């Protein structure tokens, strides 16, 4: 098992293994997606306070969770890059950034679309929304800085520092709704006692969250393979791969 992880660190093996996983990830993602979309928008009962509009939650909350999760993955890769200089970590970091940015954007946009009917406004400058917006800027900063530096190995190391420094924002986002009285709803799922949401809504929500996780791996591997080919294009294993 450990040998398998060790192999994952080598570019040609990662390329091959990631490629093999892609169709499975795709299938699992679609299955989870269908299950979540059936349980959520279709099966679950309407909310007694919010009616049908709450169904945006099945996109909004998983996206927000992913936006935080992916940033933490990026920061973790950052540490691995600075300490061990692993090439694969560099690739995972930079490939994750656009995906994370997309989820952050999605969380903000769907949140806006949910906020308009519920609170009457498209946007409010409260703690959680503002810090999620900052997260988007952090992602864009990572993508921008990486693009601006010519030597890509140097670029990912610089970006590793940025990702680690930006980590301070993550606890602020998560706890912002507890520290400040805000318009945004308080935590209902990731609390330490029983979640205060009904199971008929919780299950599809968790299904969608899982679906998005699998999707992240899918999109990540897709992107990583390309990035890996690009960086290693002059190496032996790529030449052999092309010749086949």
């Amino acid at each position: 098992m450990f040998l398998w992880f060790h192999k994952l660190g080598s570019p040609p093996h990662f390329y091959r293994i990631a490629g093999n996983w892609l169709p499975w990830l795709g299938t699992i993602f679609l299955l989870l997606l269908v299950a979540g979309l059936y349980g959520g928008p279709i099966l679950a009962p309407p909310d007694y306070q919010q009616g049908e509009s709450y169904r945006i939650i099945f996109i909004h909350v998983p996206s927000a969770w992913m936006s935080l999760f992916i940033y933490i993955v990026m920061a973790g890769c950052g540490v691995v890059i600075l300490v061990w200089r692993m090439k694969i970590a560099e690739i995972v970091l930079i490939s994750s950034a656009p995906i994370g940015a997309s989820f952050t954007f999605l969380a903000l946009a769907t949140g806006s679309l949910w906020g308009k009917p519920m609170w009457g406004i498209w946007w409010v400058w409260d703690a959680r929304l503002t810090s999620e917006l900052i997260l988007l800027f952090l992602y864009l900063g990572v993508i921008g800085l990486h693009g601006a530096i010519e030597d890509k190995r140097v670029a990912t190391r610089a970006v590793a520092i940025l990702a680690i420094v930006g980590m301070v924002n993550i606890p602020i986002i998560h706890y912002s709704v507890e520290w400040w009285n805000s318009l945004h709803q308080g935590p209902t799922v990731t609390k330490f006692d029983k979640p205060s949401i009904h199971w008929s809504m919780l299950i599809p929500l968790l299904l969608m969250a899982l679906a998005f996780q699998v999707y992240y791996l899918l999109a990540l591997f897709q992107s990583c393979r390309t990035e890996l080919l690009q960086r290693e294009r002059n190496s032996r294993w790529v030449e052999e791969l092309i010749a086949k």
Partner: protein
Amino acid sequence: MSVSEFFNMGGYAIYVWPSYVLAAIVLWLNWYLPRRAHRQLLGQLKRRNQGKSE
């Protein structure tokens, strides 16, 4: 729920459906664009390889 009720989403349709559509677009792009880049890169590398071996 009947089909028309489903589409209407209790009057909130213009908020709910764009959310789902937006999510679909974003997810599809994040899958499709890297895939296309991958194909293009493979093509480029193959052509370069042929060029070298000639």
